[in-house]
């Protein structure tokens, strides 16, 4: 696979910064009480969605999770309507019915975040079945956490996808935590990739480095697209904040959190780009400023939208 050129590198960086800044803003407005329910941010894990989605076109599919903002954004979801959904407004993607845990944009193949851990894995597998059935050449990426690999449907879906050589990549972000429980509670293997052996599919593990993720995801997606079947791709990522915004992570300890924060996929990438002269400090400032402006606009937009009207509550339940 071709190494990404300068423009691509800047694009990766910009997308990662954008996800980071958006989620930082979300933490702020959530803490203000402007967003109902829960939100789960993926700060520290921005490399994966960017590295992966850079291989996908609008017609490819991706399924996401409760911690799925990054993927939806990397796949191209419109920030304004994204924000409106989180604010519970009728202009949102789900008409303000469902919130952060259920973002979906059918037109962009963003199949929907799922509130059920593991729930999206077989659904994404079904999209891959449809792509194969219709011979469209589309590819699907199912994203999930290491905790989800304990659910029965993870196993059932990978088994079926392997048998049918479906065009799908199973991308697991192993951030070592599922809610408040560390990895050792959930699995006796160190690497999620080891679970691939049960289906005779490739299992690959990669560090939280956008370029490496881009490379491995590229291979796996190519394989899927060529009809050679699924891959289980593990990304060793880092959850900085709690399970949801508001979780103080007492169970984890300050040092561990600080350690995780040190392994900052964004800062590392930034340093690399600065060192290689791909970016200058002033470019970074400009990028950040532009993004900040876009975010503020989206938040203002969401604030200005109205909540759904109770009279619309039943609309569209059936076709």
């Amino acid at each position: 696979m071709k190494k990404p050129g300068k423009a691509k590198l800047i694009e990766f960086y910009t997308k990662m910064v954008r996800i980071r800044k958006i989620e930082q803003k979300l933490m702020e407005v959530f803490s203000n009480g402007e967003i109902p329910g829960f939100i789960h941010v993926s700060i520290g894990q921005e490399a994966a969605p960017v590295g992966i989605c850079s291989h996908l076109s609008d017609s490819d599919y991706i399924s996401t999770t409760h911690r799925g903002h990054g993927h939806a954004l990397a796949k191209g979801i419109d920030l304004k309507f994204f924000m409106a959904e989180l604010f519970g407004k009728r202009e949102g993607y789900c008409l303000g019915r469902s919130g952060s845990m259920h973002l979906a944009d059918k037109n962009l193949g963003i199949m929907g975040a799922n509130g059920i851990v593991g729930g999206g894995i077989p659904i994404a597998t079904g999209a891959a079945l449809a792509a194969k059935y219709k011979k469209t050449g589309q590819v699907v990426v199912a994203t999930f956490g290491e905790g989800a690999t304990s659910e029965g449907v993870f196993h059932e879906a990978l088994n079926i996808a392997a048998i049918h050589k479906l065009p799908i990549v199973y991308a697991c972000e192993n951030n070592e935590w599922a809610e408040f429980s560390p990895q050792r509670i959930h699995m006796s293997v160190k690497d999620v990739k080891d679970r691939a052996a049960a289906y005779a599919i490739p299992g690959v593990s990669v560090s939280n480095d956008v370029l490496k993720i881009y490379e491995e995801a590229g291979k796996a997606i190519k394989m899927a697209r060529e009809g050679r079947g699924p891959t289980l791709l593990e990304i060793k990522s880092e959850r900085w904040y709690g399970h949801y915004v508001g979780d103080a992570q007492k169970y984890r300890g300050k040092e561990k959190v600080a350690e995780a924060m040190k392994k900052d996929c964004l800062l590392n990438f930034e340093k690399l780009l600065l060192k290689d002269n791909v970016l200058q400090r002033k470019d970074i400032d400009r990028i950040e400023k532009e993004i900040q402006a876009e975010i503020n606009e989206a938040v203002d937009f969401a604030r200005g939208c109205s909540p759904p009207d109770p009279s619309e509550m039943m609309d569209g339940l059936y076709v």
Partner: protein
Amino acid sequence: MKEIRYIFAIKEAMEEEMERDENVFLIGEDVGLAGGSFGASRGLYDKFGPERVIDTPISEAGFTSIALGAASCGLRPIVEIMFMDFVTCAMDSIVNQVAKMRYMFGNQYTVPIVVRMPEGAGLNAGPQHSQCLEAWFAHVPGLKVVMPSTPYDVKGLLKSSIRDDNPVIFVENKTLHAMKGSVGEEDYVIPIGKADVKREGEDVTVVTASRMVHESLKAADILSQEGINIEVVDLRTIQPWDKEAVFNSISKTHRLVIAHEAVKQFGFGAEISAAVSEEIMDELDAPIMRVGAPFVPVPYSLEKFYVPSSEDIVGTVKKTLEQGF
């Protein structure tokens, strides 16, 4: 018209819809090579090939959600769950995913999926192979629940279900599979949500569905010899159920019995009863009575005492007639 079995009518419906629309496909355990555990898809694998008649591993949750994913991408899956009891393995798929995908994602998706499953006792297959769980699904917004009782109905309703853009839980009954009946040669559909008066009568309305339709018809024969004429209303669909038809019949008979094979308590009869008493109680001349199975798992060797019978219906109809306000 021709005489065919209920199971063959199911096959014909699937076959004709698969011919009509190449997006329709069948997925489930042993549906392909073997033609289905009960033979519902016999011949379809040879005709349509392994891409459209998909044999799966024993993974009810997995393949039901896979079908959903395919439906959300424009296909029209028919899922076969071998016995209704096994749908317990796929409840997240059906309740949290299939039923909610459309509404939860702001009506972006249509979810044309049919989940077929045979219910009930009759094969002495024991406690884990004989349950009637339709009331669960009727309680879940986003689903429709169909329960046909005859070869004619099963064909027309399955075709409607496959053409419907909403998820349909399609409940067959194992004892009906072998039943013969006349089925039209032409392409016909029966609308979901419409009941059918299988026998007219003036004295008592019996609202029922699936296997119990036949027990009710037997009961009607028995009762008619004593000069009692019951009206047998076959709901055919329990979600949404045909209030108009039920209320019309009650306005004529002023007495109501509801009969189903499922355990009586918390079964679909409860909802019919509650809705009737809420909305048209003043039409009734006697308490609403229900017939359903006893509150116990289905015992292997006592099936014939367990499953509600025409005698139970006869008895309950008479009780209704003895009572009044």
